[in-house]
């Protein structure tokens, strides 16, 4: 029981971090970025390359990986999203193709065998019969800190408030002197950075492989679908629902079924309550 509680809490924190960059783009840009999983992969592989292959200090590796993620986000916005004029379905298809391209690029550079990343923070912590790696603990704490920072950024800073304005009403924001293109670009950069950092922690929790982008993408999709858009709090709540569902399934039923309920959740919510559990005006 304690095991489920602790594992669930930790995993959920990680999932919230993974999902938040995806919901951010959906809320501000109104497009589903199916290549979001590629940020995670690029971030994780970049970190792996800098730290484990080249032997850079962890902090540098992390900063570089995050920078690459942000740059990737900007490029994606400029070269794909803007060219397709925000056509939702076209962006969805194009980003899916991009994800496959990135996957192939990763195979080309790093080959297609899975790689084990050293834990970012080694060691385990025993508490009440449960064992917790410091690594996942660090990931969870980091994700809480990052989410808190993001919340402060969105609510307190000028750029963050501009993002909120654009997510509510693009035309209205443009009239009040906000440049939606610039805000979008910033959002794509932040989303890329968040994806990269999420990817590093996710990879340190599981492993590195060219197919690693699918699982987190499905989780991020579930969070958007179930949680509704634009709410960091909504993302947090749904990430916990999914995290606890997975941990409970793994512990009590079978490890192979851990993803099944996430998929069922997406399907059932979209069929029964297409507006999401926490409300969403348009489809």
């Amino acid at each position: 029981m304690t095991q489920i509680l602790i594992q669930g809490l930790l995993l959920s924190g990680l999932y919230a971090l993974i999902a938040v960059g995806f919901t951010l783009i959906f809320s501000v840009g109104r497009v589903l970025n199916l290549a979001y999983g590629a940020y995670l992969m690029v971030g994780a592989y970049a970190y792996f390359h800098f730290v484990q292959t080249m032997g850079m200090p962890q902090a540098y590796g992390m900063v570089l990986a995050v920078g690459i993620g942000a740059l990737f986000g900007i490029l994606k916005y400029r070269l794909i999203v803007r060219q397709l004029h925000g056509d939702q379905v076209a962006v969805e298809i194009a980003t899916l193709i991009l994800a496959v391209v990135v996957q192939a690029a990763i195979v080309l550079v790093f080959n297609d065998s899975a790689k084990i990343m050293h834990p970012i923070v080694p060691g385990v912590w025993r508490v009440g019969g449960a064992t917790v790696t410091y690594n996942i603990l660090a990931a969870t704490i980091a994700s809480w800190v990052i989410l808190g920072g993001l919340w402060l950024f969105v609510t307190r800073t000028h750029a963050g408030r501009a993002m909120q304005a654009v997510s509510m009403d693009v035309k209205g924001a443009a009239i009040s002197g906000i440049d939606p293109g610039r805000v979008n670009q910033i959002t794509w950069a932040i989303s890329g950075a968040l994806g990269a950092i999420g990817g590093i922690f996710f990879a340190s929790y599981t492993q590195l492989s060219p197919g690693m982008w699918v699982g987190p993408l499905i989780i991020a999709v579930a969070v958007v679908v179930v949680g509704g858009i634009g709410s960091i709090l909504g993302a947090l709540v749904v990430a916990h629902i999914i995290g606890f569902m997975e941990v409970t399934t793994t512990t009590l039923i079978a490890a192979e079924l851990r993803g099944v309920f996430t998929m069922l959740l997406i399907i059932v919510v979209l069929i029964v309550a297409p507006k999401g559990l926490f409300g969403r005006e348009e489809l």
Partner: protein
Amino acid sequence: MSRLSPFWRAVLLWALFAAVMLALPEVVSRGTMRTFIAAFFLAIFAMSWDFLSGRTGYISFGHPFLIGIGAYTTAILSYRFDVPVTLSIPVAVVVTMLAGTLFFLPALRIRGTYFALVTLAFMELMYQLVQVIRPDLTGGTRGISGIETLRRGAEANYYLAFTLMFVVAVTLWSLTRTRIGMALSAIGMNEAAVAGSGLDTTRLKLFAFMVSACVAGLGGAFYVHYLGSIAPRALFDINFLFTIIVAALIGGAGTITGPIAGALFLTFLLEELRPVLPGAERYLVYGGVALVLYIVQPKGLQALVMGLRGRRA
């Protein structure tokens, strides 16, 4: 040449296409025939996708789910229960059509991006379930091999695959020429206006789903009896989905010739790249080409060629 109506000109072109393709085994190698067979099956899947998504605008990210249902049904029936293929394939098609109604449920209430997401979830769900539920039937992660094949040798299989593709293509082409085809295209352009013209869009969409699922099931069933084996990761895979969608899009969505041309182009491109880039890296070139083409002209190669011609004129 005497003046022909567009209809008879099209019929003539179909006949010409069939004649050339049926004569081809006389001149090409067995290896090339195998490549053609792969292209024919891809064309069937791409036409199935396109009949639903290219026409009505309901983008399916779950076609491998439908194809997989057809393939697994006939594989399990014939391999585990010794059901003759003459029975197991029709059953597989019917089962796939029933599964298509599952797909249809979300389409009643949502469209666009969310619809694509549910179908994607269906595919991933199937991938996980197939490995866990009754592995004694599905073969679990490893799948099933040693399934009965319908024909032996490249040439016999070439004729079979081509005939299947040709029948599907001509049937779908005839369908699109009817007023149902027109109404389905109209749904893709403006669903509300179709309802506003007094048509029951739910029934029309259900029809499109059933046809698409029927073709997917048929293709999947014949494919598994061509390969002789089935494995979940090869079927319920984003790369497979990607190949289907790209084949349909690259040739031109909303057409019948587009997916066929796209499937042939992509299969041979992949084949040509094999000596240069063995392994999965081929997807890099292939995906890159597809991505650039898609961003330049989302309506596909046909529209791109037409556009260029128009600009020159």
